[in-house]
């Protein structure tokens, strides 16, 4: 697979520290929801840095990037790059952590922080395909200001249930006390194991291992739990 040139055409602010970048990639072959791309930056002196980012949209080439302090790639993508600027990309890649619209099974999406991105691609692909597969999203995040896609997730989307799990600070009057994801969150907000849902868990490594262990404890089959871990970017 070869590297291609992607040209930035638009930017949407998601949170104070994250934004969605819309790129034009000539002859983009399309992608499956959940796939990612590798992004490569080359400095004037020839030094290169490379990171993986999940594709956020169903059809368009969009990446949502969280700024990681002291990161090599994300500060450029969140603070410096402007429309008209170009980066190199390789993809789409990854055939495991994907959802296909022909799949009719119930789906549980469990996202931690920026792990929401590939899950949002699945939600968008479901909507675009007119799929009636029932979806539930459990979105764990530090506080309400960190919410990606806040307006879009607030819109009614029949067959999609969304629950927010705040870990540090919740909105006033929020019933669930702030804290990390627990068995009860997955028992209440997920599907019973005997519904045999496909579970997709994405986030930082610690979050993914904790959530996957809880799903196993609730009786979900290991083969139905797909995970993707995010590293520092």
């Amino acid at each position, binding site marked *: *697979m070869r590297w291609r040139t992607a040209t930035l055409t638009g930017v949407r602010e998601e949170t104070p520290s994250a934004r969605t970048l819309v790129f034009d990639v000539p002859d983009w072959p399309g992608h499956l929801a959940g796939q*990612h*791309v*590798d992004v490569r930056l080359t400095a004037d002196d020839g030094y290169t840095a*490379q990171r*993986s980012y999940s594709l956020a949209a169903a059809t368009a080439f969009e990446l949502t990037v969280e700024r990681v302090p002291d990161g090599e790639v994300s500060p450029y993508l969140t603070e410096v790059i402007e429309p008209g600027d170009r980066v190199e990309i*390789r*993809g789409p*890649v*990854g*055939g*495991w*952590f994907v959802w296909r619209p022909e799949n009719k099974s119930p789906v549980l999406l469990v996202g931690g922080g920026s792990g929401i991105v590939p899950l949002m691609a699945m939600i968008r692909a479901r909507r675009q395909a007119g799929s009636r597969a029932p979806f539930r999203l459990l979105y764990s995040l530090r506080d309400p200001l960190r919410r990606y896609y806040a307006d879009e997730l607030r819109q009614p989307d029949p067959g999609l249930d969304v629950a927010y799990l705040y870990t540090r600070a919740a909105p006033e009057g929020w019933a669930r006390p702030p804290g990390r994801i627990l068995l009860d969150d997955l028992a209440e907000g997920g599907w019973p194991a005997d519904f045999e849902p496909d579970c997709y868990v994405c986030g930082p*490594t610690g979050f993914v291992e904790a959530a996957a262990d809880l799903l196993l404890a609730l009786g979900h089959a290991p083969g139905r739990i*797909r*995970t*993707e*871990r*995010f*590293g*520092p970017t």
Partner: protein
Amino acid sequence: MTTEHLDGNALAGPLAEIFSVDVTAATGRCASCGLSGPVASLRVYGPAPGFVARCPGCDEVVLRLVRGPDAAWLDLRGAVSLRVALPE
């Protein structure tokens, strides 16, 4: 292992340089403990100086991948087999 690891999904791009099928969705079998599972579920450390993918069951090395300036080195001695789904 205390070092932060990723998983086999991170190998999709580097392996796509070598193979025309997606290897991360293939089912691999660990040569050490016999556990079978998708390459995507391996624990991956890297990328520098190379990727090291370990079995989530026994933590033994299943796959190593190093990209040099003009070649890639792929060490699969920790895998008994790879099952790659193909269209009929």
